């Protein structure tokens, strides 16, 4: 989970898009924490790896599953500002990192049947159209295909676990 610390009323001075780019950059480089100062605005970004779920704060900020942001929590000395942040648009998902989400509520299966090997594992090269997993609800088997080609870099869900609508299932580094 991350926190962005800034002077709330000056966030606008540093463009939201710019902050998003910074978040993605740090994520890609595998940084655990970094700080940037520009035009008197200081932003510190802290990552904690291995987080599986994204919690959207009430009244929430649309989070981008690709980058598990726990909202962009503003905290400052005079942190009374609870003004809603502008929603993070879908484009936040950067072009190189593609997140496959579940189109239905159901049960996640990593393999076609319990005795078969997983469709894919981290490190695999996947092609667009390749089956990545099955999400089942009420004997409706939803084969989830990759819409992009690239390297599978993350599996968010364990076999036979329930998943929610829109929940991230895989991350793929597009190539």
């Amino acid at each position, binding site marked *: 989970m991350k926190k962005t610390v800034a002077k709330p009323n000056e966030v606008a001075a540093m463009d939201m898009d710019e902050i998003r780019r910074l978040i993605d950059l740090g994520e890609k480089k595998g940084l655990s924490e970094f700080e940037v100062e520009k035009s008197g605005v200081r932003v510190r970004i802290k990552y904690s790896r291995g987080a599986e779920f994204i919690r959207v704060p009430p009244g929430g900020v649309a989070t981008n599953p690709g980058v598990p942001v726990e909202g962009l929590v503003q905290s400052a000395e005079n942190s009374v500002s609870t003004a809603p942040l502008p929603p993070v648009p879908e484009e936040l998902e950067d072009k190189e990192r593609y997140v496959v989400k579940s*189109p239905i509520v159901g*049960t996640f299966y990593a393999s076609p049947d319990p005795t078969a090997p997983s469709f894919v594992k981290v490190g695999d090269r996947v092609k667009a159209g390749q089956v990545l997993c099955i999400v*089942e609800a009420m004997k409706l088997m939803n084969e989830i295909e990759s819409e992009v080609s690239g390297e599978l870099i993350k599996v968010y869900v364990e076999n036979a676990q329930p998943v929610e609508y829109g929940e991230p299932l895989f991350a793929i580094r597009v190539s």
Partner: protein
Amino acid sequence: MDEITVRKIDKLLNLMVDNATVVVSGEKIARELNVTRSQVWQWVERLRNLGCEIQGVPATGYRLKKMPDLLAPELVRRELGTSSFGKTIHHFLEIDSTNDYATQLAISGGVEGTVVLAEGQKSGRGRMGRQWYSEPLKGIYCSVILRPGLPPAKGPLLTLAAALAVRDAVCRMTDLKMDIRWPNDLMIGGKKFCGILAEMSAEVGRIRFVVMGIGVNVNHTSFPKEISHLATSLKLETGKTWSRIELTGQMLKRLESLCREMEKAGGQGIINRWSEISSFAEHKRVEVHSNGTSFFGETAGLDENGFLRVKRDDGCLETIYSGSIAEANEPVKES
């Protein structure tokens, strides 16, 4: 038998049906199927083995005298009237799996209502790689391509609609008392006679297609030992042989109207009807096997997605997305 052979035998059958009661020359058949006359003769033998009464007219050709209850597309279509489901029917004497074939058709653009029927399946599937026992000529092994104007979240509800469609079709023909075990097993006297397995292709926000696989045990007179305590057929329950053609037609018509209803009015109507019919909807003591665990509880209705709510013995309310439900055999504990 390879697929081309299967298709050609099917074409032969349709040729015979189209020209029933008249003599079709062996030469004409050979020409249409692009095979030799001796090949035609072998396939005619095969159809005879399936119960077709085909008279060989010396030096001329063949005449179909009697057709068994084969699910020949023309015959099924006669049952369908003006329905749009079943306008295109792919019929096989034998196939690996109707769902696999229908999925391929759907991927290459097969339209809504396209139907795949087989007299037998070599690897009929159930959930999680289980087998569906598909005895040739006895059951209905059917897959239908649906392209509903529904969000993917409503896709699973279509499997309840399919179970209702088969149930309604059987109701029209017999006076059997049926139950539906969540989500979509049709039961008579605690034994299953119809199973549903659907495959969906969807993206976030849109269903590309659903292939609805329906297996109905119609005229089976026995089952393998391993499943005989779990499975039954309409014939075993009534002692009568039923027309698979009529039943197929009825269930396709009903499925079409239930799908239309869902598109127009949403899924609540399906959930309500399911709940009226199924003894599993409420206050049923069940054993739930889901996601590698199992527990006992009492059913507490369906939610708006058709998911089953079960109140566990420890008081927790669980919502079940997938898995199997069995009527609990153990007596309810007295408190």
